[in-house]
C-alpha cells in the first residue's frame, strides 16, 4: 500500500463528496477502511484483529476459497452477473467477533464518462456482529459517470450484519447496485439505503435469501428524489427457512423526481412473518411516486402484511409550526426530516448522529 492514511489519498476538492457519503477520512471512528477510485483499489486497512479487509483481486490471490464465494449467490438464484468487474472489497469478520466501530468502504468515481464496475464480498462468520458503511460518491469531475456495484453477502449462523449504503452522486451519474445476501440460521441482516443527493438514475433490487431457520432481514430506505432524478428502488426477501422474518420499510420524498418503491416478500416455508411499509411524500407538482408492493406465499401458516401511503404534507402541519415561529420552508424541512426518520435504521448512536447531520445538511439546501 502506498498510502498509510486514508486522508492522504483524495484531493481536497473530493473530500467533501466522500464525507457526505458517510466516510470518516480520519478513520478515528472506524475499525477498518477501504477506498477504490474508478478501477483502482487505493487503500485498505484494518485496525482490528478478526476484521480482514482487502481489494478483491488481492483476496482472490491470497485466499483461493474466495473463488467459491464469488458469484455463488447468483448461481443459487440462477442469475447471471456481469463478469467484467475490476476491484471491489473483500471483508471477512471472524467467528464471534463483535465489531463496535463500523467498517467503512468507499467507492469513488473520479474520471468523466468512466464506468466503475466492482464486485464485493462480505463474509460474516458465525456469531460475529458488524456494522458496515459503504459510501459511494462522485467527484465534481465525474461527468456522465456510471457505477455498477455487485455485492454478495454471506452471513453465517447467528451472525449480524448492519449494512448502511449511502449514495452521494451527482445529477448525471447512473448507478446499478446488485446485491444478494445469503443468510444461515438465526442470522440477521439489516440493510439501510440512503440517497439524499441528486443522481441521474439508480436501479436496484437487492435480495436477501433467508435460508436458515429463524433468520431475519430488514431493509430500510430513505430516498430524496431531486428534480430529474429517477430512483427505482426495491427490496426482495425470500423466506426459505422456517420461522424466518422480514421487514421492508421505505420512505421516499420527491422534490420533483420519480421514485418507484418496490418490495417483494416471498414465503417458501411455514411460520414466516413479514411486513412491508412504504410511505411517500410528494413536495413538487412534478414529482412522481409509484409504490409496488408484492407478496406471495405457498403456505397457509404465514403472517404477511403491507401498508402504503402517498401524499403531500398536510398544510395544517405547516401552519401549526408557523404558529410557533417557523418559516414555511423551515416547517417543511423539519417535517421532511421527521419523515425520513433515521431511528428506523437500527444504528448505534454514533452513526445515527452522523446520518442525522448529513440529512440536516442536505435538506437545508433543498428547500
Amino acid at each position, binding site marked *: 500500500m502506498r498510502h498509510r492514511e486514508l486522508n492522504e489519498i483524495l484531493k481536497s476538492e473530493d473530500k467533501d463528496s466522500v464525507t457526505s457519503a458517510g466516510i470518516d477520512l480520519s478513520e478515528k471512528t472506524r475499525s477498518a477502511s477501504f477506498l477504490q477510485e474508478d478501477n483502482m483499489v487505493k487503500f485498505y486497512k484494518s485496525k482490528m484483529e478478526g476484521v480482514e479487509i482487502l481489494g478483491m483481486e488481492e483476496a482472490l490471490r491470497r485466499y483461493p476459497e474466495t473463488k467459491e464465494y464469488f458469484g455463488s449467490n447468483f448461481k443459487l438464484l440462477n442469475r447471471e452477473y456481469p463478469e467484467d468487474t475490476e476491484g471491489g472489497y473483500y471483508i471477512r469478520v471472524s467467528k464471534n467477533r463483535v465489531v463496535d466501530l463500523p467498517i467503512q468502504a468507499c467507492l469513488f468515481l473520479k474520471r468523466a464518462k468512466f464506468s466503475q464496475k466492482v464486485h464485493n464480498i462480505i463474509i460474516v462468520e458465525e456469531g460475529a456482529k458488524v456494522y458496515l458503511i459503504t459510501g459511494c460518491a462522485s467527484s465534481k469531475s465525474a461527468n456522465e459517470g456510471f457505477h455498477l456495484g455487485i455485492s454478495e453477502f454471506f452471513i453465517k449462523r447467528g451472525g449480524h450484519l448492519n449494512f448502511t449504503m449511502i449514495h452521494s452522486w451527482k445529477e448525471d451519474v447512473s448507478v446499478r447496485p446488485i446485491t444478494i445476501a445469503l443468510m444461515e440460521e438465526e442470522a440477521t441482516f439489516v440493510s439501510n439505503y440512503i440517497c439524499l443527493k441528486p443522481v441521474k438514475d439508480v436501479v436496484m433490487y437487492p435480495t436477501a435469501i433467508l435460508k436458515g431457520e429463524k433468520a431475519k432481514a430488514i431493509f430500510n430506505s430513505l430516498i430524496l428524489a431531486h428534480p430529474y432524478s429517477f430512483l427505482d428502488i426495491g427490496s426482495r426477501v425470500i423466506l426459505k427457512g422456517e420461522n424466518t422474518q422480514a421487514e421492508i420499510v421505505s420512505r421516499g420524498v420527491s422534490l420533483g423526481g420519480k421514485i418507484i418503491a418496490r418490495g417483494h416478500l416471498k414465503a417458501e416455508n411455514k411460520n414466516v412473518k413479514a411486513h412491508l411499509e412504504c410511505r411517500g411524500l410528494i413536495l413538487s407538482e412534478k414529482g412522481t411516486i409509484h409504490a409496488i408492493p408484492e407478496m406471495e406465499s405457498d403456505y397457509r401458516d404465514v403472517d404477511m402484511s403491507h401498508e402504503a401511503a402517498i401524499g403531500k404534507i*398536510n398544510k395544517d402541519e405547516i401552519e401549526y409550526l408557523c404558529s410557533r*415561529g417557523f418559516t414555511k420552508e423551515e416547517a417543511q424541512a423539519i417535517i421532511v426530516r421527521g419523515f425520513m426518520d433515521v431511528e428506523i435504521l437500527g444504528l448505534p448512536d454514533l452513526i445515527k448522529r452522523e446520518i442525522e447531520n448529513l440529512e440536516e445538511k442536505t435538506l437545508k439546501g433543498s428547500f
Partner: protein
Amino acid sequence: MLEIRNLSVEVAGNLIIKNLNLDVRRGETMILFGPNGSGKTTLIKAIMGFEGYSIKEGEIIFKEKKLNSLSTEERVKLGIGIMHQHPVKIRGVKLHQIAEFLCPDREKIKKFAEQLFLEEHMHRDINIGFSGGEMKRAELFQVILQEPDLLLLDEPESGVDIENIGIMGKILNDYLKNKDKSALIITHTGYIMDYLSADRGCVMFEGRIWCMGNPKEIFESIKKAGYLKCKECYAPQRVK
C-alpha cells in the same frame, strides 16, 4: 397592544366576522365568550393570519403595526403566541425539537417540562398518542416557552381534568402577572377564570362583539340565563 378595527373575515366564501371592533390593552387579560359558531376561533385564527381566513375589510394592529399582510411567523416574531384548541399531530416531529427552537435554554426547558409533567413526551412525536389533557399541557408548554406579549388561548381548559387545570392555571397566572403581557382567552366552562384575574370580558354573537364588561358578571349571567337571554340584554357597556 392589540387593536382590531372594523374587521370582516371570510372563510370559504362565508362572512364570519362582521365589522368587529376590539382592543386588548397592554397587561390586560380579556375573556372572550360566545356561543358555538359565533366566530371566536375564527377571530383568533385571523389574528394569527392562517390560510383561508381572509380579511375583507378593516385592520388588525399589534404594537402599532398593521398585521393584515404579514405571514403567520412574522406575527409570531412580533410577539403573538397561540394555544390551539385542536392541535395537529405531526409524525416525526418531536416536542423537544419545537421547544429547543423556541427557547435556547435547555435547563429551563427541562424544568418547565417537569412542572407540566411532560418529561416523557419530549421525545415523542408531537401530539401523537397524547391524551386531551396532555395535548393542552404541551400547547401551554410551547406557548409559554415562546414568551409572547399577547397570548391567544382557544379553550385552554377543554378536555383537561380539574387537577391539571390547577397546574395550568397557576402557570398562566404567573405568566400574566407581568404587566407587559396580555391575553385573549376563549372559554366555555369559565374554569380558567378561577385561577387568573381577568380584567375584562366580552361576548361575541354572529361575528360581532355584543357587549363588554366584568368577566365574572358576564359569565354568571350566561350561566344563569344562557346565551339567548344574554343576547337580549342591552347592557350599558354594549359595544356599538
